[in-house]
């Protein structure tokens, strides 16, 4: 009965022409939708371009690295082997010593310090903003955080040299060299803090209200709700923030070039108070000078680039694994 009523109401025939129906026959044949097809093609193109670019970068890096491995010394010996590259601790291109560890160690050290600063502070700030702050406070602080994330890194580099290093020297005395990985790492931590805070805050705020109410409704305290429900549910987003943070730290060049030091220096145990050169710092310094195309120095830079690429790739895979393993997907 209701169906009939609806029929009477809708069958004014006014929209028949728009639906391309004939008076006595509906037309539900498949139609050409050129605009939809165009948009789909455009999006596909965007996807293909980004994938091709990545593939292109990998090919260039791989190719140059291959040339690097094949280089010979003037005596006709192989200049470097993969084993030497990965397992020795001296990087001296002049003496055909290409062990990545001094550079890699410096990269790991600065990144480690940076994450040590940025993760707890960033996550803390995110939890405060999303769970404790009033709306006004959040609406003021969040944009400020995002502005901080946009400060050019060279500014942070000078901040390290003119503020952090003198501060550390004032505290630590002569043990602290003018160039040191600690200062660079600390400032790098400050640099990535807003990114981690902002991304984690997004992940935390995205946890549905219903889930929080379920927890509070059971008589959970705020801290219990945050630690047992909200953080697990937001884990994959927080991990993503962490990975972006680490990737930025590993790839950061300006701060380390200015504050960490300008010469490879392998220390065991790691000494954070002396200068050392990171992978990126080295690439920046060497490629800044006059470098002849296809020289061994030139090729070696690409092998370093490939190493950085593989490193961040592994990191991404690891986080994906952790996230799939432990996260509590809420939808």
């Amino acid at each position, binding site marked *: 009965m209701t169906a009939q009523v609806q029929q009477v109401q809708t069958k004014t025939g006014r929209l028949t022409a728009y639906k391309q129906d004939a008076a006595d026959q509906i037309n539900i044949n498949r139609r050409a939708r050129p605009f939809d097809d165009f948009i789909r093609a455009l999006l596909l193109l965007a996807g293909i371009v980004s994938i091709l670019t990545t593939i292109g970068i990998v090919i260039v890096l791989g190719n140059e690295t291959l040339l690097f491995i094949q280089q010979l010394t003037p005596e006709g010996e192989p200049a470097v082997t993969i084993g030497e590259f990965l397992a020795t601790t001296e990087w001296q291109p002049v003496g055909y010593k290409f062990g990545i560890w001094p550079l890699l160690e410096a990269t790991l050290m600065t990144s480690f310090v940076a994450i040590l600063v940025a993760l707890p502070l960033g996550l803390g700030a995110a939890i405060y903003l999303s769970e404790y702050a*009033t*709306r006004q406070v959040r609406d003021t602080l969040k944009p400020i955080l995002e502005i901080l994330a946009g400060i050019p890194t060279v500014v942070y580099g000078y901040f390290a040299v003119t503020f952090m290093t003198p501060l550390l020297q004032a505290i630590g005395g002569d043990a602290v060299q003018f160039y040191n990985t600690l200062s660079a790492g600390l400032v790098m931590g400050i640099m990535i803090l807003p990114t981690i805070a902002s991304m984690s805050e997004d992940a935390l705020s995205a946890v*549905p209200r*219903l*889930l*929080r*109410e*379920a*927890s*509070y*409704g*059971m*008589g*959970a*305290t705020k801290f*219990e709700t945050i630690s*047992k*429900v909200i953080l*697990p*549910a937001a884990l994959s987003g927080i991990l993503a923030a962490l990975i972006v943070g680490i990737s930025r730290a590993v790839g950061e060049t300006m701060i380390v070039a200015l504050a960490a030091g300008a010469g490879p220096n392998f220390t065991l145990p790691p000494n954070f108070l002396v200068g050392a050169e990171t992978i990126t710092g080295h690439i920046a310094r060497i490629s800044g000078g006059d470098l002849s195309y296809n020289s061994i120095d030139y090729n070696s830079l690409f092998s370093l680039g490939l190493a950085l690429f593989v490193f961040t790739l592994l990191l991404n895979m690891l986080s994906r694994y952790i996230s799939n393993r432990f996260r*509590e*997907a*809420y*939808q």
Partner: protein
Amino acid sequence: MVATAMQTGVAQTTAIEISHMKVYYGEKLAVDDVSLPILKNKITAFIGPSGCGKSTVLRGLNRMNDLIPGARVEGEILYHGRNLYAPNVDPVEVRRRIGMVFQKPNPFPKSIYDNIAYGPRLLGVKSKAMLDEIVEMSLKQAAIWDEVKNDFRTKSGLALSGGQQQRMCIARTIAVEPDVILMDEPCSALDPIATQKIEELMRELVANFTIVIVTHNMQQATRVSDYTAFYSIRKQETEVGKENRWGVLAEYAPTQQLFERPAKQETADYISGRFG
């Protein structure tokens, strides 16, 4: 069976006494001057048109409105002689005794076991044997045990059907053995069979718990509840074209009486579907 106690004049124990309750959201009055008792080991139904403040009053009973910025409650809500809104009352402790089942099932993205054990663990239960027992008991009481007994330790609460999720949420609530269970349209997302299961469940639970249920379904109110509170909307024109709307308690009576011999015309109109 409904309202027999009232008719025979046996004294009823009150679980919660709502007295002159007003709720504001920011400046806006949402519910004005609600007074009624929530009787112990009875089911009280809240009915009324959309937006009349049923959920608002319900959430006021275990201080869930505290979570909404700007929400404010006036009046007294007495529970064991204490005003729930007195400054020295801890809302966390209130919610451990007055539990809530929400309109939309909201399982944690954890295993069924961890969902049910969540509340007891909050209370400090650590013994695995005891948790096992609580989980099994609660799932049985919520009439969902048979459907999940094989995989409740590993299966995610989200992997259940909507009706199963809702029964699991009820199990989760009764696992902490609250005094009072507040249910906000617990069956609105469910099919008739799941609804019937939950209604039967409520009738069983009421032997041990006090239940308040918000429902839009008149039949459901008559089927399950002992007492019914009918809320209605009052309007006042503030300036031309603008009006204030707030909810009031229009009538409260034993369910059978309210539906068969409503005292007010607006109640009669609403329950016979002539509203608005």
